[in-house]
């Protein structure tokens, strides 16, 4: 959620049980302003918090001119000193998915190890066993996890962002919010990431879409069906969407106002048991 709206928006997503204490909130108000200036970001967002066994990571996101592509992530323990997360590559994602297991520890230099035995040759006699050790430190795991969460479950209401004719994704300043009846449907909320399913849609489905606004996938197409929980909270005035795939991601939107945002406060593990739980 945008750092400028932090002072009221945290209360709107507090229905999930997590909030920040006053000390952290005020520290963020100070440090994110400095962060924005130092890194020359257009906008700074408080992204969320990943709960570790010993300590918690606070994560901030800086956005440049293109809201979708120019993103940088930073983490901190005390909400004051921020460290840049490494950018994610495919090989890094693979290593992390193999080696990193269990909960986050809370120490960026903690090394996860995974020993794999490769067997060369076919027969039992000339088969040479080779041990491959994959090592990943927690900072990389954090970078990959944050990236994955943003890729899979970041949410924006339809119309809040537009793709300009130059291909840049920018905030739509004339976005006035979804109406009450629109907020009831998941297909008015979009994944804020490069689309995967959009090209697979039939021409009939594409007919209603506005290319300026509908350049992202809608939540209602997600598999399995029911991986989102849409409710109205805060005296039924705020639309709150929670992801059941990444437990801890909460999105809010106040209907008829441009206020929206999402936050992740959770243990940073994907809910792989989802198919059993619905």
């Amino acid at each position, binding site marked *: 959620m945008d750092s400028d709206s932090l002072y009221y928006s945290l209360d709107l997503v507090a229905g999930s049980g997590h909030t920040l*204490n006053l000390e952290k909130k005020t520290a963020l108000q100070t440090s994110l302003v400095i962060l924005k200036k130092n890194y020359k970001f257009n906008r700074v967002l408080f992204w969320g918090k990943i709960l570790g*066994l010993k300590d918690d990571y606070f994560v901030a996101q800086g956005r440049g001119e293109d809201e979708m592509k120019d993103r940088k992530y930073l983490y901190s323990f005390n909400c004051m000193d921020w460290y840049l997360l490494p950018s994610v590559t495919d090989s890094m994602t693979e290593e992390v998915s193999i080696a990193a297991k269990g909960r986050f520890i809370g120490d960026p230099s903690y090394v996860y190890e995974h020993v794999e035995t490769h067997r060369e040759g076919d027969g039992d006699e000339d088969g040479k066993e080779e041990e491959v050790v994959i090592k990943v430190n927690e900072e990389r795991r954090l970078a990959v996890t944050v990236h994955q969460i943003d890729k899979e479950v970041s949410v924006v209401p339809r119309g809040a962002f537009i793709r300009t004719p130059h291909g840049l994704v920018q905030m739509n300043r004339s976005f006035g919010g979804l109406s009450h009846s629109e907020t009831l449907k998941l297909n008015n909320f979009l994944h804020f990431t490069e689309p995967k399913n959009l090209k697979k849609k039939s021409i009939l489905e594409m007919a209603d879409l506005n290319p300026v606004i509908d350049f992202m996938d809608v939540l209602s197409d997600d598999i399995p069906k029911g991986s989102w929980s849409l409710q109205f909270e805060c005296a039924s005035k705020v639309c709150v969407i929670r992801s059941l795939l990444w437990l801890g991601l909460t999105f809010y939107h106040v209907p008829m106002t441009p206020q929206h945002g999402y936050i992740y406060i959770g243990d940073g593990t994907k809910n792989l048991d989802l198919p059993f739980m619905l």
Partner: protein
Amino acid sequence: MCLKLRNADRLQTAASFKAYLLKDSTKTNLNLYDHLTRVLMKVMDERPHNAVDVFEDISRDVKRGLFEEKQSTLRDLTEATAAEQLAEQQRLLFSRLEDADQEEELVEMFLPNVSEIAFYLEQAGVGLGREEMQRIFLALKQLVESQGLQHCRLWGKILGTESSYIVAEAEHREGDEEEEDQSIEAAAEEEEEKAEAEENENDPLPQSTYKPPPVVPKEATGTGANKFIYYVCKEPGLPWVRLPTVSPAQINAARQIRKFFTGRLDAPVITYPPFPGNEANYLRAQIARISAGTQVSPQGYYQAGEDESNEEDEVPHDTYEVNPDFEGLPVSEMADSLSTWVHHIQHILQQGRCTWVNLAMKQGDEFNEETEAEDREEETDEPEPEVGPPLLTPLSQDAEITNTPPWSSKMSSTLTAQHAVAVLRSNLWPGAYAYACGKKFENIYIGWGLKYAGVGYNPPVPPLPQREYASGPEITEALDPTLEEEQALKEALEEQQAAEEEMEDSEDEEDD
């Protein structure tokens, strides 16, 4: 001359272009000229910043505005939105009692100070938002007043996929609820009788020799897992619903499944292994498990109750009372060491109860007609009683699951540590928190009602198929006899018959 002509030419082109712009669309009956005029007027009126960037949207808005006007021939039916309906119901929370005498009585009534709890929880980074907490506070007040509860506290909130449950915990009062249970049991017995009667009327069917394993009896209200009674509501202001008591079978089934709550108490719980009951029962079972696992207090706050039942060594004492001499532990110590925290809710055993019950013994008592041999057998394999950790065991003795320490503790603030509170977070039940500050402490659970699963959930496999019937000669398949064999058999039979007849004849003759 030439210039004039060209001018006229230009004018004509412009006029024809204007005519083109003024051409109505066959579909919408609009034309571009009027549309552009309206768009430009809107821009002039509103003067948006960087108008060129949002031009498309303005154009869309103008078009949409026209559409709405057309539809206004029908009057809108005002439909109450969810927010309005809820506001009507929540209005009752803010009503004040007019009778002054009653008010004085109510001041004496026990009501937890939720706003103080919310203040401390916020320091711990937990909470539902200040306004929501205030509403819950008022809803709790409503509950205490309507039910006349003596002891009540906010237990927490369980999130569901459609709506959430706010859970309040209240102490059981004597002679309160037995009637309900009895009526349910009576109904069940009646049903059984009916079923039996029906069976007797029809042809008797072959009876199964399978005997179900004995059902572990429920713990009485006010003891063990049913020590407290729980009320839930969806939103503060909506009616509170009392949850049913929990049975050991439900606790054991809940241990084996992983399922989200939907937010409807009467929703069926469709899982494998099957869960006995609906979502209200599942909710109650999870609440019992969470309470047993995560309700903690600073060491020394409670002391073991001095009950006469302590004389029996085997029975673990399940009572405790507030220690009047408790001075409070320093916060830094509480944040550092887990041994300063103790469980004050009984551990639930494998059996699904807090106190172990010997099923074999009970069976012996009930079925006296059984033969002595069976009785002897029962005596020999009498099961070992399960014993859980005693009450008020320090948290440092909790077991680890998949290399995850069960608790994380910290101070709420590092900058002003003098006034910080000690915060404890459960890693086994994500969402369970406890704080302690001086003599004050509180537990709360806000989460999905699911235990941390470690690597991944493996649903239990279905039981192995039953063994096939032992194959013997009487059921073995044989080859069909050929025609020759049949004829040979026929001949043999005929010969035999003939021989018998001869014998009979001879016998007859002899008789004569």
